[in-house]
């Protein structure tokens, strides 16, 4: 029994939040890694793109709610994700046309791209704060829990239990669906293969008649769509704060680099690695060990490796370790 109690505790405080947060990071990191694979630069504006998508979704949700739109027990915002995606993708294409295409034609140094993406980041951050303001917005109006901790406890008769939030289930399911679609697209369809070819060897791809503009456009479309989902799901799960997305840039980059930048599978797994290790390292194991160990060995301290305040630092430490030991990441990146 004690063993199951411990497992329930770990599920409630590490596994479920970790998988949810990991999915959000994975969606963000996939966007970063695709941009890197095709356009060959680190897009510092990606966090703001996520924020932009979430903002559009929130605005439409408010509009829809004022007309009485509702999605049953699911959050209304999900209905408006497609519209938000369209807006974000249009915004991405505008950025590409007005900012990045010039440097792409000139074949500028990746650093110039990076600086340009910082300009885009500033601009988007300002635009978002200008439109929706800098304060927090909570827009999750669905049923909060699929089952709560208490329901779980009465059902199983355990001392500890775990609850499943609707947003957690939505996030994990959506990520699985989106990623399967993406991997199917990249590996099985002709267009996806042309994207991989372009990322692998640009000159060779050009020789075989792949249109670079089409590939680049497609990359932005996918990145914009993924960014919208990542932003909306994060906002549903926690809360929408415009400034949090700049902070999320670091774990997202870490996820992309840990998995091997430019490698979608790596970014996907990297997201979960970062999220789970953040939680594993900052979780207080006192109660878990209390169940697992014999009574006389019960720990007196919190049994915590790092204080929860240092959550964001964990992703960074992993990043540095990977950069020093294996800079190409776990799945040796560079190609799609």
């Amino acid at each position, binding site marked *: 029994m004690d063993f199951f109690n411990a497992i329930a505790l770990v599920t409630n405080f590490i596994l479920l939040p970790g998988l949810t947060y990991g999915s959000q990071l994975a969606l963000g990191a996939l966007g970063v890694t695709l941009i890197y694979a095709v356009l060959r630069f680190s897009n510092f504006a990606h966090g703001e793109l996520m924020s932009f998508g979430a903002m559009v979704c929130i605005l439409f949700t408010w509009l829809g709610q004022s007309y009485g739109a509702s999605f049953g027990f699911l959050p209304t915002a999900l209905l408006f994700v497609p519209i938000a995606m369209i807006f974000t993708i249009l915004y991405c294409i505008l950025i590409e046309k007005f900012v990045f295409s010039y440097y792409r034609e000139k074949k500028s140094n990746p650093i110039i791209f990076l600086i340009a993406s910082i300009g885009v980041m500033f601009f988007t951050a300002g635009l978002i704060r200008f439109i929706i303001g800098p304060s927090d917005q909570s827009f999750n109006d669905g049923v909060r829990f699929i089952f709560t901790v208490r329901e779980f406890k009465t059902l199983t008769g355990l001392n500890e239990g775990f609850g499943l939030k609707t947003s957690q289930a939505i996030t994990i399911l959506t990520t699985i669906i989106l990623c399967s679609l993406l991997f199917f697209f990249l590996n099985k369809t002709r267009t996806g293969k042309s994207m991989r070819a372009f990322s692998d060897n640009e000159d060779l791809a050009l020789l075989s008649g792949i249109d670079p503009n089409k590939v680049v456009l497609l990359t932005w479309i996918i990145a914009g769509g993924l960014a919208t989902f990542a932003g909306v799901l994060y906002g549903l799960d926690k809360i929408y704060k415009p400034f949090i997305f700049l*902070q999320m840039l670091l774990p997202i980059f870490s996820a992309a680099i840990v998995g091997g930048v430019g490698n979608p599978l790596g970014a996907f797994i990297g997201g979960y690695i970062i999220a789970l290790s953040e939680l594993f390292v900052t979780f207080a194991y006192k109660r878990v060990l209390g169940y697992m160990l014999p009574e006389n060995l019960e720990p007196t301290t919190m049994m915590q490796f790092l204080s929860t305040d*240092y959550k964001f630092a964990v992703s960074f430490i992993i990043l540095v370790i990977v950069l020093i030991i294996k800079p190409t990441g776990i799945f040796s990146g560079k190609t799609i």
Partner: protein
Amino acid sequence: MTNIQRRTFIFVSFFIAITFIGFFQSWNVALGILNLCIISAIMALGVNIQLGYAGIFNAGVMGFAALGGLAAVIISYPPVPETIALGGSGIFLSLVILTVGATIVTIIYKSTLSINIKKITIPLSILTLIILFNLIGSPAIERIEAFKPAASGFLGGFGLPIILSWFVGGILAGFVAFFIGKLTLGLRSDYLAIATLGIAEVIIYFLKNEDWLTRGVKNVNGLPRPVPYEVDLQGNAWFIEFCERYNFPLVETSSIVVKISYCFLFSGVLITLFILSEIALKSPWGRMMRAIRDNEVSARAMGKNVKARHLEIFIIGSAIVGLAGAMLTTLEGQFTPTTYQPLRFTFTVWVMVIIGGTGNNYGSLIGGFLVWFLWVEAEPLGLYLVELVTSPLNETNPLRIQLITNAAHMRYIMMGLLLLLVLRFAPKGIFPEGR
């Protein structure tokens, strides 16, 4: 226009703009902007040394500025005898353990032992270090933080003159930069940017959460000043007489005098640093740095130690940023870790350097002045623009109210546009690097 004409033109127009604000807003505001402009210019000089001389992308400017602020607290705040009695020895002991442990780990790492032995001993010694540190440090930290948490709850500082902290801030930032540089300088440029961005965040988290050192988010207020206080001036017989003779308002004049004194102090630092960096840029050392930046391979072929030079320049640039950070905390008189945000510190300083022209000290100087000026003035300007655009709307229109309350955030939009436009149409900045 030649470069010199252009320089003079921009400097003169900048000072005209400041005077303009002095006459139309108030001299207090104008001098306040000028002081922060000087600090920004110093930060920009530091970043320019890294970005312009050597092409190192340091996205951790924020962290080094915060370390400077920390130095200001540690140097100038009077010591708190009660907390030192409670936990001072514990903290001291754990610092000693940390230093000794780090030395042991380094010795093992550098020794000729086989790689397998190192693989076991290094993690083991780090683990012992962490456990020892926790056993001795944690109780001391708890005791310190429990002492009057609302008013004190930290160790305080040395109670020395705050000007000293400017040097200490530089040294502290340089010291930390040494380790960060050792760790990250081998990375490719965009990895380096990401890694330093992360390190800066870690530094800020550290400052926010280690209450025994910095009081964390409770902030340290009331740091001593290097210049007289307004209240003292207002009570000074000579000053009252001076104001009466020229018919100046007493309260306003006192705060203007304080700001002017800061301005003199800061300009002194700026001018010194500027002259030094000009000399450095024109010296053989500066030429070597640019040679490394422009063609690393050939510089290496000429026998230059690229890695060591990069580390050197990383330390110097970060030290200057740390110095500016200490000056900023001095000016504000308080240390608030939550105000350190990458958009405000790191990326704005980048914009300054890139707009001014990388590799050119005049460029960073004018970039710092110009960008800070715009950063501050964007708020009234944005408000004016929004009111103009929304004037056909009703006073109580929610959209209009929303836009007006958010108008302050126009500054981000403007920074972004400025950066993108300069990058596109004048990629070398307002002052291209001379030959």
